[in-house]
């Protein structure tokens, strides 16, 4: 039954192609641009007619299908999410036989829910997969290989998307996910008013040229103290999480992974140690930040004007603007470090995947491809101010228009080009090894050299096992 449905759909697609090429020919034959549009419209109508005429000949009606997507993008998060949730239901304009059902699952419980679903053999058709677990789920054999689907949909080819996204969704030449959410990295957000007050040039052209020393120097100028006690942090030092740690490696032109991702390379040229040492010095010797705490709402301190520079994700631009409309801010990448050539950061995207046991793979694939298509990505930009992993996205007029409205978005492509790898292989496990050691170093419980060495050993063991598992 499934087979016949596929062939039916393929036949329809073929018809569509014929009609489409007819339209192109007609368009070429036409003279003015307006005419072309009209011709295309007309052909589209004809095309529709063809379809409606042809369908009854082949089968009386397509079976209605409900595809289920599991996602943490619930409309209850906020108005932009509600708008997007409404929008994706227009997919049924393209595939009228498809009803989209979204299973909303809180972000922190996605894996739990997915695990229970796989165990019961009751999985969604589309799985909104974070970069944090896509590769793990593929290695565990629960995701469908997409190479065949990609062949039938040229728009989803490798060349459509940022090269940095490839490792997150391809393992040993096999594709298992399509990027659609974000193209994000770590940035340093800075308070423009504080900069002007301290006589620093807040222009991106200037801050993007900074190096670590200049960051430290500027932070000292920005810090306000009452005696020894910091009352306003020039640069807020956090407990460095992995995404942040990686960004501080890439700005030294160092790498997190050795080629092949079976080992880490983060301490070549002492890159990891330099990163930790810089932060320890900033915290303990230069006193530019209040002490670090376990789970600091650091974004909030920045919003309250209690920190002049603070790290955050690129995704937070729009949220920051709506939370505190009066706050003047901009962002830079991580300033270039010793051995580095320019400001850099980590770059990543979240994905859509097809679970192996999904019931309606063809329609689910069409939906995935539709969401990752240029048109919907632009719609996402307009509704939510979110960028895209597509290369052609940044060439569009809509992007240029939006960056005029939201100036902080403008430098995003510059910051994210040459984005380094997000630590995507066995992220949870690696993170669990990384975090206690990093904490130990930051609070002076562990000596930096020994700590970094322990980190290397621990993470290499996990990566080695992962490589072994994949043969």
């Amino acid at each position: 039954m499934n087979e016949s449905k596929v062939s039916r759909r393929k036949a329809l697609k073929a018809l569509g192609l014929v009609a489409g090429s007819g339209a192109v020919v007609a368009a070429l034959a036409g003279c003015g641009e307006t005419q072309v549009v009209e011709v295309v419209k007309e052909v589209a109508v004809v095309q529709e007619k063809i379809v409606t005429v042809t369908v009854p000949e082949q089968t009386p009606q397509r079976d209605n299908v409900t595809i289920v997507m599991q996602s943490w993008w619930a409309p209850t998060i906020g108005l932009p999410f509600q708008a997007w949730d409404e929008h994706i239901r227009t997919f049924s304009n393209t595939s009228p036989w498809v009803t989209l059902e979204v299973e909303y699952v809180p972000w922190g419980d996605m894996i739990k829910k997915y695990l229970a679903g796989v165990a019961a053999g009751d999985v969604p058709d589309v799985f909104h997969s974070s970069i944090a677990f896509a590769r793990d789920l593929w290695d565990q054999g629960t995701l469908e290989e997409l190479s065949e689907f990609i062949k039938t949909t040229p728009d989803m080819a490798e060349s459509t998307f940022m090269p940095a996204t490839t490792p997150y969704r391809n393992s040993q030449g096999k594709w298992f996910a399509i990027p659609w959410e974000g193209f994000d990295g770590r940035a340093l957000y800075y308070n423009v008013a504080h900069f002007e007050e301290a006589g620093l040039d807040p222009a991106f052209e200037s801050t993007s040229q900074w190096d670590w020393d200049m960051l430290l120097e500027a932070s000292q100028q920005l810090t306000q103290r009452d005696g020894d006690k910091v009352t306003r942090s020039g640069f807020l030092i956090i407990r460095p999480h992995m995404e942040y740690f990686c960004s501080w490696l890439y700005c030294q032109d160092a790498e997190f992974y050795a080629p092949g991702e079976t080992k880490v390379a983060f301490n070549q040229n002492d890159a990891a140690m330099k990163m930790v040492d810089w932060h320890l010095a900033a915290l303990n010797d230069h006193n530019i930040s209040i002490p670090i705490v376990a789970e600091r709402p650091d974004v909030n301190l920045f919003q309250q004007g209690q920190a002049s520079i603070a790290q955050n994700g690129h995704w937070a631009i729009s949220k920051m603007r709506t939370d505190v409309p009066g706050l003047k801010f901009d962002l830079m990448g991580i300033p270039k470090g010793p051995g580095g050539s320019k400001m850099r950061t980590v770059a990543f995207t979240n994905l859509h995947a097809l679970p192996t046991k999904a019931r309606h793979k063809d329609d689910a694939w069409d939906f995935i491809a539709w969401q990752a298509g240029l048109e919907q990505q632009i719609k996402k930009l307009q509704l939510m101010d979110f960028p895209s992993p597509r290369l052609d996205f940044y060439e569009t007029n809509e992007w240029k228009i939006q960056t005029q409205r939201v100036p902080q978005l403008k430098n995003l492509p510059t910051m994210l080009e040459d984005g380094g790898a997000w630590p995507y292989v066995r992220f949870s496990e690696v993170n669990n090894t990384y975090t206690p050691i990093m904490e130990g170093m930051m609070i002076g419980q562990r000596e930096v050299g020994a700590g970094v060495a322990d980190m290397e050993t621990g993470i290499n063991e996990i990566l080695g096992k992962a490589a072994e598992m994949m043969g």
Partner: protein
Amino acid sequence: MRIAGVSSRAEAGQLVKERHSTAWWVGNISKMTVVYTILIVTALVFLYPYFWMVGNAFKTNEGFYTDPYRLIPEQFSLDAMRAALGIGRVHIYLKNSTIFAVVGVAGQLLVDALAAFAFARLSFRGRDVLFVLVLATLMLPYSVVLIPSYLIVYWFGLANTYVGVMLPGFAGAFGIFLLRQFFLNIPSELEDAARIDGATTFRIFWQIIVPLAKPALLTLGLFIFIFQWSSYVWPLIVLKDWDKYPLTVGIALFRSTTWTYWPNILAATTLGTLPLIALFLLVQRYIIGGITLSGLKG
């Protein structure tokens, strides 16, 4: 539930206390001062987070993010409340949570009380082994039993149903244990007298034990209500349709990795806490007072 009987007994207990208190009260003003000082200071410590939650529920988004520590909003706003009840759909979740909690209380109180009575007052072969088995269900961390439990519910065809969420909660080791301890406290004289009068075991349970244990039953009812109300992981795993989600899961959907409007969450949480406070105020009156054993033991 025959609350009237309880209240009259509670009042009787109260009367006994009042009679003694008159002399006691006059002579102990200094003691009262100490008691109230401790109570008020502790109360402020306990209330602070609650004031904070309610205060922030009435702030604008900007008001919250620029000064979250402030208890009284600079600019009073209903935005968060409106968002919670609008796009937040809190009213739907409140309805579901109420269903889960009310049915849960009714079902579990009955099942637990019957079992607790058996474990406290009846003797049968394997009783102690069964009781240990009951207690053992509390001892294994939920992470390793969650999916097996879900698979059982799934195989019964109860996935994504209210019944699937509620049925396993109809028996609780916590409640059985609690009630057993209280039933053990009830002197056996009344029961013996009833037996001599030829009462069946069920009548003894229903007409003697249950009325005497009402403080415990009400306490347990309150706890089951709270437990069901704050239950999160289980309904999350069993349900798929967000129209069936309880408040806890609904509020969790306010958060994403990158975006969280805290005032909305705090408004929704405030709305979700009010019914519990009302319920507690209602129930706690009946938990006080003592058992008056009319005609027994001097």
